[in-house]
């Protein structure tokens, strides 16, 4: 993991931004680092991919918040089973994160899918 991302108390030392448009997803110091194996559909998608099976990527490191209003800006996808994927609120690039409707108070943003200020 990149140095200086996590503060001493396990929070995000820097603000979390959209990789593509720079829209602020989380302010600094509001999310905790959580390790959990989550499958997120690939961000890169060609026109071919629509016909083939959606490629997924296993991601382990995430910023975890417990209240959706902690986000500065974020979009929630429609339900995919019991999952809502998180996308950038501005350019809608994603998925950048994961929320299971069965775990009401957990919202994950994958470190690999975002930039840090």
């Amino acid at each position: 993991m990149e140095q200086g991302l996590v503060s001493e108390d396990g929070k995000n030392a820097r603000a979390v931004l959209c990789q593509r448009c720079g829209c602020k997803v989380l302010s600094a110091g509001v999310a905790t680092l959580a390790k959990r194996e989550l499958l997120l559909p690939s961000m890169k998608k060609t026109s071919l991919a629509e016909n083939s099976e959606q490629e997924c990527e296993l991601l382990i490191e995430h910023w975890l918040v417990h209240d959706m209003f902690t986000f500065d800006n974020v979009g929630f996808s429609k339900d995919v089973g019991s999952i809502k994927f998180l996308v950038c609120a501005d350019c809608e690039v994603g998925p950048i994160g994961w929320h299971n409707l069965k775990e009401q108070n957990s919202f994950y943003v994958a470190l690999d899918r975002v930039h840090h200020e």
Partner: protein
Amino acid sequence: MDPRPGYQRAGGSSNHHSASSSPALTGAQARRRKQPLRPADFKLQVIIIGSRGVGKTSLMERFTDDTFCEACKSTVGVDFKIKTVELRGKKIRLQIWDTAGQERFNSITSAYYRSAKGIILVYDLTKSETFEDLPKWMKMIDKYASEEAELLLVGNKLDCEIDREITKQQGEKFAQQITGMRFCEASAKDNFNVDEIFLKLVDDILKKVKMTILQFTWERSNGSMLSKIMTNDAPHTKCETCSAKCMELYIAVCRHIKGAVIYLFI
């Protein structure tokens, strides 16, 4: 068009003083307030409703996105967005719901209505049938929405002036029949009026929220603190005397208010 003369919503938005509007706090909510300062001053839920094809989704997109890129959109589709805006120096967290595609599922949408502080009702000014649907939407609002919710009627697709079927006057007339309903025409396509629509709605909601706080603090303090609280416009001013306890403002008004921390939890 609603045929009833002088049609009014039960408990119009001009009435800020109904006793039921003060936020009743439970023990759990009071405890929650003792968490560290949240980055947002206000949290508001706004829903966008209207008949199919009037442009609800484009209104949401235009507000939340000035750099729209079709290619990058997720295929699943966005359900709702959390957006932070700043208005008069305050950070406001908006939760914006677009009800597109859910017009038929009353049981699902009723939950959206109940929690909405702002409702944007959209019609397409080039399709008279979407205007004729408005009374149907008003019935849903009356049935499910909070009486306190701010209402805004939007005639969308102003960019299609040539195909206009509903005049601006017709829209105005409809809005006038409903207490507290605002009206404007907009174009999500060229972003005309869209930012203004949302900010105006937020502004109206905030004014109402302030009234609710005043009313609440009045009740809890027997009125003695009211004048001081009224001058305290900034929601996060610190109590100079007892900063540790000022979070209890909602439970019992702090005795040394020269300015107190007012935590809004809507």
